[in-house]
């Protein structure tokens, strides 16, 4: 999480019309707050997280805390009250608008085939991007931007796994080209849905789906894979594996559009 956490009150005093919470996640338990009320909540354009929980003060709700959820397909319009002088019950914590991802993220995830002795894993930290509007925005279109990731050279001894966030995305285009003029490069793609689990156990609960079985890509050869929600399913993250230093350009484009 970003530290220090952005202060929503400063957005008010600096004349802004919205408070934007944009931060990479570092753990599954990250939770954020806004001190001021808003008239709408929406997912920001750069969010990797697709579903975000929002809690706000409501005197008629149990424990005075009311919940809603926003996503790339659904924003919330209407006043979400921070109500600082009142207190949630039974914690007696002051009123705030609380924001946290509903999607799971586990930086301790390791693929089933991962060897701690030789393999390495790199995570692209998912970004939480939420916009709280102070004035009525009229209409909201909470579309996320398409994201593009590019990799080229890899530092590894065994297999390197690259984990890319894919929450709620419906399409992914993958292009992998082995530019090593001599050696082949074994390239594979996994889809993973995180679970709340003990990663130290021999059988963690994370779900893995093989999208492209690891296979050697000859020197100069290329692999193109299109992942769609209709044919492959939906995943929290995509895991790409390579076993050669490269160069081997890997281009990944993820999108919310189903691309026909």
């Amino acid at each position, binding site marked *: 999480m970003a530290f220090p956490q952005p202060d929503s*009150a*400063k957005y*008010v*005093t*600096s*004349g802004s*019309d919205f408070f934007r919470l944009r931060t990479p996640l570092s753990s599954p338990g990250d939770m954020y707050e806004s*001190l*001021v*009320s*808003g*008239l709408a909540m929406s997912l920001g354009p750069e969010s990797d997280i697709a579903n975000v929980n929002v809690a706000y003060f409501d005197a008629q709700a149990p424990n005075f805390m009311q919940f809603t959820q926003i996503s790339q397909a659904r924003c919330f319009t209407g*006043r*979400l*009250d*921070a*109500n*600082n*002088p*009142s207190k949630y019950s039974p914690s007696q914590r002051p*009123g705030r608008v609380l924001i946290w991802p509903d999607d799971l993220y586990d930086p301790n995830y390791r693929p089933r085939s991962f060897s701690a002795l030789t393999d390495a894993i790199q995570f692209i930290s998912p970004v939480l991007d939420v916009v709280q*509007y*102070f*004035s*009525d925005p009229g209409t909201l279109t909470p579309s996320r931007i398409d994201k593009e990731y590019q990799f080229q050279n890899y530092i590894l001894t065994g297999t390197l796994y690259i984990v890319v966030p894919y929450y709620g995305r419906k399409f992914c285009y993958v292009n992998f080209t082995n530019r090593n003029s001599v050696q082949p490069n074994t390239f594979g793609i996994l889809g993973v849905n995180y679970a709340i689990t003990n990663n130290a156990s021999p059988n963690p609960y994370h779900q893995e789906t093989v999208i492209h079985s690891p296979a050697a890509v000859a020197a100069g050869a290329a692999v193109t894979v299109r992942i769609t929600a209709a044919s492959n399913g939906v995943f929290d993250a995509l895991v790409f594996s390579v076993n050669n230093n490269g160069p081997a350009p890997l281009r990944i484009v993820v999108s919310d559009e189903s691309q026909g």
Partner: protein
Amino acid sequence: MNKLPPLTLPGSVANRRSKIAPVSLDRTVAQAPTPSDALGAGENRIQISTYFTKVPVDGQPPDVLYSGDRNWTRVRVMLETAGPVAVGQFSNLFPVLSGRGQLLTTGVPVTFDIAKGNKLYIAAQSVNRVKVTIEPYPWLEMITGLLGSLVAAVRGTTTALAGKSGKVG
């Protein structure tokens, strides 16, 4: 060493005393202008500012948005953030949603005509941004001020005469 006092001309800026209370330029600090004790025939200047509401402290009265130091004033306020923010002429505004004040609607300006001595209070539950314009009625301000001066002058003359007649008697 110069012992002469600094030269100021009658009517110069140095001799004028504003009835508008000083306002801090620090925009990150919520503030309320303090009442001015200056009296005069009329004040025609407009006071334009942005007001930031504060999180209330238990037992504290709401902030004073306008302290009623002019003869007649039109106070225009517009909430720029989500609120809720209430304004009213009595200091018992809390809780904000109690109905004892008028809730401001985001983006909708509201105007109040306020006579001298009446205050405008503001109450909120969190930090909000409110545009404030305090403008006089030039003609009403002037007439009221002149009438006040006239009444004061007549009263002074009457008192003086009464004093003299008392001495004669």
